[in-house]
């Protein structure tokens, strides 16, 4: 049977090559599976040489669990706090190396696309933070947008000017960013994310001095490289406490970039704790007419009224243009609470418990009611919450920890809540 499988795969691949040459452009779905998706790579041999498809589901889940375990081991041992009010500058390298086509269609386009997604994700997870964009072109660093809290203006500015030329200069970028980040309030966490395509840097002075300057100003610099590992980037990240990674392909680049969206562990001495005055405006009545302070024209209905100076603003979160008060609503604060009250990772139910015939394990996932039995009525792989002991399927595990941040089991049982409260 295994030989048959092997032959069939090879045979079909050969046939397809002929078909493809004949067809040219318009490929059917089954042809695309060979031309574009390379389905033969999804097969693997086990120890006796039998072919079997890679179980992407359990592979994905195993990857996810390794990541969660490494994150949670850091968090629980060191009791690290998170920097929730972040001022992040993204430095995009637009030197001639960004025109390379190893990322399709070119590095610059791929970077711009993923930076747009990152900006939206960043403001989704950190509503009180601000972002600024800087580009490096012809050896000079330009500030594309100032530090601000509105995702649309950043995205528009980025997509507007995408041309690359010249050399790349890391020192000029760091100097510019240092100048901007020195002006922010002391309770904010200063961060820089450099997306570096070039393999070298052309600097006017001593970059080591600049790195020391950044380190003294407590700016956390991280770099994501698109070409290869460069010593100076590694040194910069080590000195300032950031993270350095090099992307292998487009998917990997997206993953690395989105890892910077949730708040990083905050080094305690870096930001001074402070009480920040903020306003919680009420939504104006539907029929009220006021002159809006952002667009400078009269608007009917909608909008919010600043509690201090009564000026009208269109959207939240924002800073009142008249009196400078930060205006937010309570859901914006609530978006960050899950960083402060994270849920514990679930434990895998050990195979010995699964195979024990005397154990009466739950037949379906507590969250989604999906059956946890393999065909043949054998219990399949599942995870359990250490607090409420409910069983969940692998997909619910990923959803709960990455998006929902609530354990359905713990939330659905009142006496388990009281047990937790009494432990505290």
């Amino acid at each position, binding site marked *: 049977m295994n030989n048959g499988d092997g032959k069939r795969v090879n045979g079909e691949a050969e046939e397809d090559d002929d078909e493809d040459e004949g067809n040219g452009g318009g490929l059917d779905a089954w042809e695309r599976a060979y031309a574009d998706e390379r389905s033969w790579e999804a097969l693997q041999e086990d120890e006796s040489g039998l072919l079997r498809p890679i179980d992407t589901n359990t592979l994905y889940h195993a990857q996810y669990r390794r990541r969660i375990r490494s994150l949670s081991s850091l968090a629980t041992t060191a009791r690290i706090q998170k920097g929730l009010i972040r001022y992040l500058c993204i430095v995009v390298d637009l030197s001639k190396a960004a025109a390379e086509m190893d990322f399709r269609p070119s590095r610059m386009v791929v970077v711009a696309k993923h930076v747009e997604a990152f900006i939206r994700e960043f403001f989704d997870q950190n509503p009180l933070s601000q972002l600024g964009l800087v580009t490096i072109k012809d050896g000079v660093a330009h500030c594309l947008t100032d530090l601000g809290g509105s995702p649309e203006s950043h995205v528009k500015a980025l997509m507007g000017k995408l041309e690359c030329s010249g050399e790349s200069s890391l020192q000029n970028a760091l100097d510019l960013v240092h100048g901007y980040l020195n002006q922010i309030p002391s309770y904010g966490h200063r961060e820089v994310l450099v997306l570096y395509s070039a393999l070298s840097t052309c600097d006017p002075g001593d970059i080591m001095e600049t790195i020391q300057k950044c380190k003294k100003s407590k700016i956390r610099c991280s770099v994501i490289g698109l070409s290869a590992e460069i010593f100076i980037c590694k040194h910069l990240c080590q000195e300032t406490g950031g993270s350095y990674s090099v992307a292998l392909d487009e998917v990997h680049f997206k993953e690395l970039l989105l890892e910077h969206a949730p708040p990083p562990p905050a080094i305690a001495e870096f930001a001074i*704790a402070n009480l920040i005055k903020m306003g919680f405006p009420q939504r104006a009545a539907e029929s009220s007419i006021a002159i809006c302070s952002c667009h400078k024209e009269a608007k009917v209905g909608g909008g919010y009224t600043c509690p201090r100076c009564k000026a009208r603003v269109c959207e939240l979160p924002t800073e009142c243009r008249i009196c400078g008060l930060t205006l937010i609503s309570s859901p914006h604060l609530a978006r960050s609470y899950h960083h402060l009250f994270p849920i514990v990772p679930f434990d895998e139910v050990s195979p010995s418990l699964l195979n024990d015939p005397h154990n009466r394990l739950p037949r379906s996932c507590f969250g989604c009611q999906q059956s946890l039995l393999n065909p043949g009525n054998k219990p399949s792989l599942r995870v359990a919450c250490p607090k409420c002991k409910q069983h969940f399927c692998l997909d619910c595990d990923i959803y709960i920890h990455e998006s929902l941040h609530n354990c359905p089991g713990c*939330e659905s*049982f009142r006496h388990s809540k009281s047990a937790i409260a009494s432990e505290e």
Partner: protein
Amino acid sequence: MASAPSKLYADDVSLLVVLLDTNPFFWSSFSFPFSKFLSHVLTFLNSILVLNQFNQVVVIATGCNSCDYIYDSSMATSPSIESGSMPALCSDLLQKLEEFVTRDEHLGKQDSLGPTTSSLLSGSLSMALCYIQRVFRSGPLHPQPRILCLQASSDGPEQYVAIMNAIFSAQRSMVPIDSCYIGSNNSAFLQQASYITGGVYQKPQQLDGLFQYLLTVFATDLHSRTFLQLPKSVGVDFRASCFCHKKTIDMGSICSVCLSIFCKHHKKCSTCGSVFGQAHSDVASVSNLKRKTPET
């Protein structure tokens, strides 16, 4: 703050997840009896299933001490098992509901904390969202899901953080949360939920006509909502409450470390222990963080 982004729907097949509040402390003292309420709801659920043959309905009961799945139309038994005059939907659902309420009461007796007046909305919302994620994973042809909360008891402030987490997750997955609130005052949590996720919030004025409200407002599928006039949200209160006095404030001071809200200036944060004006040290550790939630 902006409401949920709109999605384009191609057809009107819907999956409705109903969160039914069965809090006995509320229903025992309310003027409208639970049996009448149930009859309106059951007729409504039947109507949803009749509107389109591919529509699905899932009912999750929100109790005082537990939450559980009561009915799933995609796993319903064959219609030949009908008891007398009631269709299979009703008999299945009523039987499971009966079992749920007895179990819930039994769990309440074990608990020594005394009677509580709020039901576990955060639990049933989380379960509903997990079920909806499973539907999303089932392939490209799936019904459009939405959640309907039939809530009667008042908000439990201890569930604030969990409910907000569920609301944001629903917003990201673009699942609207509709609320039909039956209790006395308005529910701030459900108003915020419907506003943020793009759903409809309504407090029916005349409970004798509850079925009419349910059918005309909450039976509308997401595709049709683009050209129907549904009740608009008015007066959603997004103000926060201070952690020290629990009163709603217009302007307050926020701790930059743990985001707790205070109405007056303090020297030290009571939640995370950081001293303001100094770099925070390791002494003010996270173990001091108590899960204090503001009452909205």
